[in-house]
C-alpha cells in the first residue's frame, strides 16, 4: 500500500500505525522508500530460522527450559529485540528525526485504553505497539505498561481526524477461514482467531460512527497472525488491493490536492492484479466543518 504513495509521488502528511502498521509506518516515516522496505522485509524474513535461532540464543536460556515453563514466564520475547532484526538500520531512533509525523498506537494495559505515542524513542514505541500478549513482554513507557495497540484501536484512522484532507485506512485484520469441511476449528485456532474476531468487530463498530475517505480491506484472510514466513504469498494476495488503492487515490486527487513529492521517487512497473476482486469500497466522506 505504501508503494502506491511512492509511485504516485505523494507524501502523506501524517501516518498513524498500530502493531505491524506501526513497524511499517515507522520505516516509511523515516524516509525509506516502500520498495526498500519490501526488499528489507523479504530479506529479513527469508532468514527467519536464523532469526529465531539468534533470538533464542540471545535469551541465553536453553530452549527446552522456556518451553517447559511457558506458563510461569512473563512472556517469551522482548519486542525490542525482535524489532532490531525487523527494522532496517536507517529507521530513525527518535520521533524527532522522522520525515513524516507519526502517531503510534499502543494499549495501556492497566488503564485499559489506547495510548498515542508521538515523541521520545521511536523503537520503544513501536515495540510497545506490537507487544502481542503472551508472545512478547509488555513495554513500560513513563510508568505505563503498554501492549499491542490492536487491543484498543486496530485501525487508527479516527485519531487522524482533522489532520488531513484525505484519510486512507488499510485494514489487514482478516477473517478466520473454514479449515476444509471440519465444522469444529481446533481449540488453539479458536483462541487465536477470537481476538481477530473482536478486532474486526471493533473496526466495524468504529466505521459505523466515522469513516475514512478511503477504506481498504486487504484480502489476507488465509494468512495467520504469525505467518511472516509466507511474506511473498501475502504480497501477491495484496496486489489487487494495491491496484485498487492507486485507482481510488487517483480519483480522489482529481478533486482534492495533496503535497506532491519531488521527482526523486520514480514510478515503477507493477504486475497487474491477477483477478478482479471488489476489495475496496468507497465510503462516504467524513463530515468536516
Amino acid at each position, binding site marked *: 500500500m505504501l508503494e502506491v504513495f511512492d509511485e504516485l509521488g505523494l507524501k502523506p502528511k501524517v501516518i498513524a500505525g498500530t502493531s505491524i502498521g506501526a513497524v511499517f509506518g515507522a520505516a516509511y516515516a523515516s524516509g525509506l522508500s516502500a520498495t526498500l522496505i519490501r526488499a528489507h522485509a523479504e530479506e529479513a524474513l527469508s532468514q527467519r530460522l536464523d532469526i529465531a535461532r539468534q533470538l533464542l540464543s540471545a535469551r541465553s536460556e536453553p530452549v527446552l527450559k522456556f518451553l517447559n515453563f*511457558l*506458563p*510461569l*514466564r*512473563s*512472556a517469551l520475547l522482548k519486542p525490542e529485540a525482535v524489532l532490531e532484526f525487523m527494522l532496517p538500520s536507517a529507521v530513525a531512533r527518535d520521533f524527532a528525526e522522522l520525515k513524516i509525523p507519526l502517531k503510534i498506537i499502543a*494499549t495501556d*494495559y*492497566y488503564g*485499559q485504553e*489506547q495510548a498515542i505515542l508521538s515523541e521520545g524513542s521511536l523503537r520503544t514505541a513501536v515495540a510497545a505497539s506490537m507487544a502481542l*500478549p*503472551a508472545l512478547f*513482554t*509488555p513495554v513500560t513507557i513513563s510508568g505505563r*505498561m503498554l*501492549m*499491542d495497540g490492536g*487491543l*484498543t*484501536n486496530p485501525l487508527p484512522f479516527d485519531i487522524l481526524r482533522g489532520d488531513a484532507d484525505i484519510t486512507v485506512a488499510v485494514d489487514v485484520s482478516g*477473517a*478466520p*477461514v*473454514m479449515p476444509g469441511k471440519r*465444522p*469444529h*476449528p*481446533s*481449540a*488453539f485456532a*479458536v*483462541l487465536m*482467531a*477470537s*481476538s*481477530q*474476531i*473482536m*478486532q*474486526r*468487530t*471493533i473496526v466495524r*463498530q*468504529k466505521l*459505523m*460512527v466515522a469513516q475514512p475517505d478511503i477504506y481498504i480491506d486487504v484480502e489476507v484472510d488465509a494468512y495467520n497472525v504469525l505467518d511472516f514466513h509466507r511474506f511473498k504469498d501475502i504480497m501477491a494476495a495484496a496486489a489487487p488491493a494495491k491496484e485498487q488503492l492507486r485507482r481510488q487515490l487517483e480519483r480522489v486527487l482529481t478533486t482534492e490536492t495533496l503535497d506532491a513529492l519531488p521527482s526523486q521517487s520514480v514510478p515503477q512497473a507493477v504486475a497487474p492484479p491477477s483477478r478482479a476482486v471488489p476489495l475496496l469500497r468507497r465510503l462516504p466522506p467524513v463530515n468536516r466543518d
Partner: protein
Amino acid sequence: MLDAGAKSQKCGQRIAVALGGGSARGLAHVPMLEVFDELGVRPSVIAGTSMGAICGAAYAAGLTGAEMREQLTALFANRAYFFKRFAGKLRGGFSALWSARTPGVVDPVTLFEMLLPEAMRCDFAALKIPFLAIAADFYAIEQVVLDEGPLIPALAASSALPSLARPVVLGGRTLIDGGFVNPVPYDVVLDRADITVAVDVTGTPRRRPGGRLPRTLEAVTGSTQILFHSLTRAKLKAAAPHILIRPGVGAFGAMDYFKVEAILAAAQPAKEDLKRKLSQALARIG
C-alpha cells in the same frame, strides 16, 4: 409478579434488559434482576451474552432473582457439594463432556443440560418473557441473535468460550461466545423498549504486587478484557442505553464461581444504584 407485570404494562412502559458476559462475574446479574422483582416491574424483553444469557434465560423462564440467588449460592457454596452434585449427574461419566477430537475442551451443551434447572429445558417460545441470546458466528465474524428453538443449545453457544468450551454448531453455523461480537448486547433491544437497562460485568486486569509484569495467561486474559472494553466503548459512541450499570466485580476472575457470596456482596451497591435509577426513569416516563 403477574400483578406487577400487569401494572407496568398498563402504564405502557416497556423495559428492555441487556445482561453482559463475564463468566463468574456474571453472578452479579442476579442482584440486578432482584431489582425488577422488588420494584414490581416486568421486563418486556431480555437479551443476554454468555453468563448474561444464562441468567437472563433463567429469569425469562420464570425464576425470580431471589430464587436464582438461593440456588446459585447453594450450588457453589462449597466445592465438595458442587462436585458431589456434578458427579452425581454425570450419567455417561466425565467422558461425556470431552471428545477424542478436542480433548481438554468441554462440550457446553452436555454441561448445561446437567447443571441448569429443569425449568430451562424448554424452547424459546415457552419462556414467559421474550428472550434473545447473542452468539458469534466464528467464520462469518458476525453477531447471531438466537431467539427460537431449544433454549439450552443456544445458551451453550452464547457461552462457548474458546479454549474452555467447544464451539456449538447450530443451523450450519459454527458459534462461539457472544462476547466476541457483543459483550453487552443492549443495542439489539434498544428499539424494543422505552427504557433500556444494560449490565456490564467485563473484568479488569489485576495489578500484581511490586509492579511485576503479568504472567502469560494473565496477560492473555487481561488483553481479552481490554478488547471487550474497547468494543463496548466503540458501541457506546454509536448509541447508549438509558441506564448502564457496572457492578464493582471487575477484580473477580472468570472462574471465581466459588466466591459467589463475595461477588453478590460486591454487587450490592450497584443493585441500590440500579433501583434508584430505574425508579427515577419510571417516574419520569410514567
